[in-house]
């Protein structure tokens, strides 16, 4: 399937073009295999729907619907034709809350994952590349952070830093990198043993060149699979931290809606329409990222026999 594209005489191409063509083919192969994975595709579609919802929310619901003083409904109105998901304790439209919540939940989840991936990949590659004291230290450091229980650490950090959108992103980002670092280090160690790295070293390539030009492109697919799994964990973490009141007090996310519902006594009022939708959204989004991540892992894992 990919054989025809190599018909061009390689001698007429620059080395860079050859490298790019090879990478494009590798990614194309990955995409082709992914399309055949049914669970992965279902996850991808679900993911797309939620991203679309987050992007279209400002067009669908005015932000004034989040304002308690401008609420139009009654207290705990059950679902009706006007309010599809009922109203909360101050008469706000739960559907609008959940739609606006998707924006913060996805934003925090994605940004925190970027931080965690950058730290995790950098530490992992360096810990695998440098032998001796520096690499050993990084490795120890990863081990230490891996052991510290996530939620207590995140709680302590969030308390010390104060409550804001940026801080919750930082807290989730800097507490969730060790797992990635572990994985990337193992992959780096296996890449380091290959002959082309020895060749690069023999030609005088520096550490930075070796790591960015040879190791990084090779661990990239694994980083991608891990990223999608990490997004799901970040979204769950955001929900938990916001539920505990550690999120931005002015931003509406799925976690903060659940926090409001819990503190406002939605449980004893039997207001299931206030509790269920944000949670279902979290489950669906996290499931979507999990399905995509698992599908990618299945494809990239040499032991995997496919789904």
């Amino acid at each position, binding site marked *: 399937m990919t054989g025809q594209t190599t018909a061009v005489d390689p001698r007429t191409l620059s080395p860079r073009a050859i490298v790019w063509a090879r990478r494009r083919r590798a990614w194309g192969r990955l995409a082709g295999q992914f399309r055949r994975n049914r669970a992965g595709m279902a996850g991808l579609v679900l993911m797309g729907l939620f991203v679309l919802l987050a992007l279209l929310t400002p067009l669908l619901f005015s932000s004034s619907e989040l304002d308690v003083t401008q609420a139009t409904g009654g207290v705990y109105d059950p679902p009706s034709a006007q309010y599809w998901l009922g109203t909360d304790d101050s008469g706000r439209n739960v559907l609008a809350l959940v739609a606006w919540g998707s924006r913060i939940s996805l934003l925090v989840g994605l940004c925190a994952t970027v931080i965690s991936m950058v730290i995790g990949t950098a530490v992992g590659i360096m810990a695998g590349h440098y032998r001796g004291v520096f690499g050993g230290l990084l490795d120890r450091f990863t081990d230490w952070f891996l*052991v510290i229980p996530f939620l207590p650490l995140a709680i302590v950090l969030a*308390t010390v830093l104060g409550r804001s959108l940026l801080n919750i992103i930082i807290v989730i980002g800097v507490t969730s990198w060790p797992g990635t670092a572990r994985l990337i280090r193992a992959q780096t160690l296996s890449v380091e043993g290959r002959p082309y790295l020895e060749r690069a070293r023999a030609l005088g390539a520096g550490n930075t060149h070796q790591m960015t030009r040879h190791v990084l492109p090779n661990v990239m697919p694994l980083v991608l699979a891990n990223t999608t799994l990490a997004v799901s964990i970040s979204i769950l973490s955001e929900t938990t931290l916001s539920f505990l009141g550690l999120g931005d007090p002015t931003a509406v996310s799925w976690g903060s809606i659940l926090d409001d519902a*819990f503190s406002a006594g*939605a*449980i004893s009022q039997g207001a299931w329409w206030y509790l269920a939708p944000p*949670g279902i959204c979290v489950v669906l989004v996290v499931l979507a990222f999990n399905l995509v991540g698992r599908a990618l892992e299945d494809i990239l894992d040499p*032991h995997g026999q496919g789904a």
Partner: protein
Amino acid sequence: MALVAEPAAAPTPAPSPARGRWGLGPGGRYVLSRVLGSAGTFVFVVVFNFFLFRMLPGDPISLYTRGRDVDQAMMRALRTQLDQPLGAQFLDYIKNPFAQTLDSVKYGIPPWDVILPRIWPTLLLVGTATILATILGVWLGIRSGWRRGQRFDKVSTTTTLVLYSMPEFWFGMILLIVFAVGVFGLPGIFPIGGLSTPGVDTSTPAGWLDVAWHLTLPVTTLAVIYLAEYSLVMRASLIDEMGQDYLQTARAKGLRDALVRRRHAVPNALLPTTTLIFLNLGFVVGGAITIEYVFSIQGLGSLTVDALDGPDVPVLQSLFLLFSGAVILANLVADLLYAKLDPRVRS
């Protein structure tokens, strides 16, 4: 299965080359290195705990006293303590990290006096849930892994994936609203929160039943969420074992399928699951925090949430130390257990 070699018990006619200094065998060296490694991690956590609360920007006193009235005498005491050089403060702290010199802001007594009575409810909740989740998760994992791709496997894998994607406190709230409050005309059966009915003596058998009744929903929540992960891992490791040659040999000997599974595949597949169950304790601690809050169980988790508003920094610091210490200990146990179960690890 070989046990960890006892250095004294192993008969050694001549010092073998495998033996290092202090006459330790490979098993002994493994144990020693793991214990030292865990001790090192704990020292890191202790040091980290000190600097985390001091290295961050802002006035530490305003952090300790944020949002509350503090009398002048206490402010002065705090200031003299925090005005010492950082090195002196650190030496003071490192001498005994558990003897917090600052009282809990909220309760006015040393933090450990607040924490210690709260340990039992958490242990009861988390312990029961972990045991249930392990048994059910391993059983589910074996069933779906052995008959991979069949209907049971498909249903159970999908269900566990959904459960795995669920915030545990949300699941708890849904159980509460359905089974304790009652919706759609259903009556609420279970208590809405707490560990026992006020006034009931929990040392009598009737009291135990009352506690069990109160714990049903929270334990179910935690157990269901944890079993999802255990069964996914058990399934994956059983599938890994299924391609192995020794299973082929066992079948060639004429063993029945159930025996191949029980005697050969499952014991080997259990190894990664065992480690995971212990390694997972950090995650379990997180679950306990939100679940205790939702079900108003007076344990360490709800204490953590209580300490958040204020914040009650001395209590938070001590809790962080306790949670991290517990997880480090669990990891050490996992490492040693793994070595005992799988002799390959030791060498």
